[in-house]
């Protein structure tokens, strides 16, 4: 039947042959993307199984993007934005946090573990927080296992 089973590559085996989740990380242009960049230039070590999608503001992350990410086989979705009071567009991140909270309830109704979706604030100077967030989220999703839509 027609459960959404978008084409995607098999999860890449890590060095030890362990399953690695596929993570999508939405980063807002003004804080979190710069934070990710800083983590990169500072050569902070972190897992590499995530793909960053840059949006102008975390509020640009339409719930539809998140649902599509899961339908296309993402095992976890991380939304990163500026800290409260720091959004470049004044209150974008306040909308984001309301949407993500509601979306987590919806995902649970769909049968997903809501911990597959996480919101975190990462500023431009927080390269280390970016690293820590990725590491921790990767661990959480690893424990959850593959996205139930991609397993049959």
């Amino acid at each position: 039947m027609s459960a959404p089973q978008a084409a995607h590559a098999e999860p890449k085996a890590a060095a030890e042959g362990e399953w690695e989740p596929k993570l999508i990380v939405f980063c807002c242009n003004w804080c979190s993307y710069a934070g990710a960049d800083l983590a990169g230039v500072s050569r902070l070590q972190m897992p590499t199984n995530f793909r960053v999608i840059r949006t102008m503001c975390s509020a640009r992350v339409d719930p539809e993007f998140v649902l599509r990410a899961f339908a296309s086989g993402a095992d976890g979705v991380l939304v990163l934005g500026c800290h409260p009071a720091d959004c470049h567009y004044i209150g974008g991140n306040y909308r984001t946090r309301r949407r993500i909270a509601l979306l987590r309830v919806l995902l649970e109704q769909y049968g997903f573990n809501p911990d597959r979706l996480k919101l975190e604030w990462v500023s431009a100077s927080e390269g280390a927080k970016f690293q820590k967030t990725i590491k921790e989220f990767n661990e959480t999703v690893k424990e959850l296992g593959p996205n139930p839509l991609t397993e049959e």
Partner: protein
Amino acid sequence: MSNKIKLAHYWGAGCGGCDVALLDIDEKILGVAEIADIVFWPIAVDGKVKDIEAMPDGSITCTLFNGAVRNSENEHIAKLLRKKSALMVSFGSCACYGGIPGLGNLTNRKEILDLVYTGLPTSDNVEKVIPQPATHTKDGELELPVLYDTVLTLDQVVDVDYYMPGCPPTTNLINEFLGIVEKHVKEGAPLPPKGAVIASQKTLCDECKRKKSVKKIDRVYLPHEIPIDPEKCMLEQGIICLGSSTRAGCGAKCLEGNQPCRGCMGPTAEVLDQGGSMLSALASVYKVDEKEALLTEENIAELMAQVKDPMGTFYCYTMPKSIIKRKVVEKKKPVKKEA
């Protein structure tokens, strides 16, 4: 007689309301009889599946198919009618988006059959007899359609030419469409492009006559919990109204009846997922005050928990056509709760 069009109207997994809607076009129904021979319409006229099977392919001018597809019989007849019809119209919200039966995608065949046949307080079924696709009796084999795990939309099963959403489609939309088909048959007027939605291209809020101003709410209410101002936008009063995520075309019927829109016309032309779109809109109208920066994610989760049933509210008519489509099952149960 010879230039009459041939019309079929079938019901899949629906409630019968769409059939009644076609009867409800009042005296126009006589016009339908004038322009059309009804070759198949189980609720209203006699007709046998084998008669349809005997017809040449493509010989039915137009089939209006209402109801979702959720068992083997629905699917079989959808495919048969598709083969025999020049035009296949997905008629009503159930056929277009899954409709109310589509919420069956929150569960599965086994759970449904178990509950209905053995689990209800009124069920008296000690031997736990569940309907089977085939039953042997001394007089021969009895067959029943197979219920599917997943409710499907018509276009997930057969090629669809036009969509006419609505629960049920309004008299206006039905008349408009039948008029187009008649003009096409009699005068060779062009048909709408394939895949067209027989409704408006706009958003329901555009059709709604209520006064709209700044939307800022601090909580949501169910319609019975507050006196509703009949002039003012529902959403501004804290009542969840799906207008901003719903296609126009019904004439904002429910708003006229002082009830919020529940979204039966389906998503607007620009959007894939009606539920996701409404979730986004609702979250955005919650007001933000000076203390916002001090709120934690837990505070926000509590605030949004006022929306008791996002799935039932935002996907009331469209779950099978949503991006995720049906409930999934996680292999492992929750790991750890966030602090």
